[in-house]
């Protein structure tokens, strides 16, 4: 089983330690959600895990190979990444954008039949076949979010790291995307690491939750334990309590703490 692990990584942004000596290990086959208040270092940690940012100290390994020592193309084949607020510079059709996910596989001859099949599968999985010929710059935020998920799936990666992939999706599509991430992990054995903001949604989607605050990991474990009222009070300065709903645990935010 593939393993992605960060050991004692620190990242400095300006004069502030955005990530402070974080050690965490992720196993393929499960969905992990990283939560925490704004500026907690979630995105920075995720970028380090994706091999896109060099930590000031410490290292990230994928199955005992240092991520920064891997060839970028080889790394890109194994780790798919969805940036937060992704930029889309040109008015291309959705299918072409999804096809960019095949970049680490494309040779000199252009898209192969295999590439085309992977693109079709990814668009079907993300439920965006109907948008194939639409100009991505004319799509709604939620539609664009799903196209970008399909883009990451097209590379068929062992690992999917996504920075707030559910932001801007309506509740129905949030559930669909969450189900998709779970199926990728549980049925296909991939590793999925997401940053999220919605506590109850995270509890519903993730097998494991990591709560960060001020660059450090505050709690790490199964959703109900990691999102305990004490942790939430410390991380967000909010008063919260667990409610058992029909769909599972819900986290009701009562108000600001203290």
């Amino acid at each position, binding site marked *: 089983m593939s393993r992605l692990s960060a050991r004692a990584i620190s990242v400095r942004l300006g004069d502030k330690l955005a990530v402070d000596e974080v050690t965490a290990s992720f196993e393929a086959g499960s969905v992990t959600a990283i939560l925490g208040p704004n500026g907690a270092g979630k995105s920075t940690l995720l970028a380090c895990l994706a091999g896109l940012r060099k930590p000031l100290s410490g290292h990230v390994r994928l199955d005992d190979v240092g991520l920064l020592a891997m060839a970028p193309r080889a790394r890109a084949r194994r780790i798919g990444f969805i940036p937060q607020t992704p*930029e889309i510079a040109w008015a291309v059709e959705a299918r072409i954008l999804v096809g*960019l996910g095949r970049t680490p596989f494309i040779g000199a001859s252009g898209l192969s039949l295999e590439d085309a099949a992977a693109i079709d599968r990814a668009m079907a999985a993300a439920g965006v076949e109907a948008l194939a010929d639409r100009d991505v710059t004319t799509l709604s935020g939620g539609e664009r979010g799903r196209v970008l998920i399909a883009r990451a799936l097209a590379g068929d990666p062992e690992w999917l790291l996504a920075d707030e992939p559910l932001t801007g999706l309506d509740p129905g599509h949030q559930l669909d995307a969450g189900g998709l991430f779970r199926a990728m992990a549980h049925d296909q054995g991939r590793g999925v690491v997401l940053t999220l903001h919605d506590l109850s949604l995270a509890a519903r989607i993730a097998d494991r939750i990591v709560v960060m605050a001020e660059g450090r990991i505050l709690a790490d474990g199964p959703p109900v334990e990691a999102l305990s009222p004490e942790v939430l009070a410390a991380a967000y300065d909010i008063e919260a309590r667990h409610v058992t709903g029909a769909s599972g645990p819900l986290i009701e935010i009562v108000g600001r703490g203290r």
Partner: protein
Amino acid sequence: MRRLTVLAALVALGVVLSLVSMAAGRVWVPLSDWTDPSDPRWAIVFELRLPRTLLCVAVGAALGMSGAAMQGYTRNPLADPGALGVSAMAALGAVLTLYLGAGASQPWMIAAAAMAGALIAVLLLLALSGSASSIVTFILAGVILQTVAGAGVALALSLAPNPWAVNEIVNWLMGSLADRSMAEVQMALPLIAVGCGLLLLIGRGLDALTLGETGARSLGINMTATRWLLAIGVALTAGASVAVTGVIGFVGLIVPHLLRPLVGARPGGLLIPSAIGGAVLVLAADIAVRLTPAAGEVKLGVAMAVLGGPFFFALLLSLRKRIA
């Protein structure tokens, strides 16, 4: 399918315009009279006009492709070697060699100096505007380069040793393809070919950059290599073009913009169509200036500016919302 149709149409147009370019001028030589080497008009077609036609194609392709590549890299539809001061810096390099007299003795010095100027310009542009690629900082960086290069040229002109040197520099600066010989073709063609080859290598990287720099890096694109290939590719294509023709602006700006709706906006896929489209545009413009009835020939660079200025303005108007 549509892409292939457009490409085929562009190539056909290019071939037709090339033939017209060789037939047209003060002396009209119809195709049927091209076969007899003893006819004095044979020399006009093959010794005077052929180099000019070849240069039109090469320079047009170079400017079209470098414009498309710069737009793709910067994700900015206003990027163009002319608009961002790359051509102006190449011209400054060339003018300095003309001024110092090195250009007259060694013609390749002009090309080398022009390419050096263009390379410095591209590297400064990338450094001045950073990787974040805000349209505004890019244009401002281009304005700075344009101004500095213009001041350098003005200085060279004001310190020029005699009025003939001034005349030579000014004439050359305005951009023209008149009276070019095979020597210029032999110098520019290989440089432009290599430059276009380098730019074609970064096609996939430019595609991936549609998702921004983080997106491209997450797809395994080596941004450092991409940046250097772009800089050297643009320096070779734009520098060699300026060295043989002077400054011809707007080609790299107009062509990708016109082709985007026809062949799709994917930046890597726009490189080859823009090269062909650039060749077509420069051929057409050069034929037009040759046939314009005037005492002297209108300079091609001037004609392109007359055409390109309003186009640039219209493009800016349509982009107003994005930039503000």
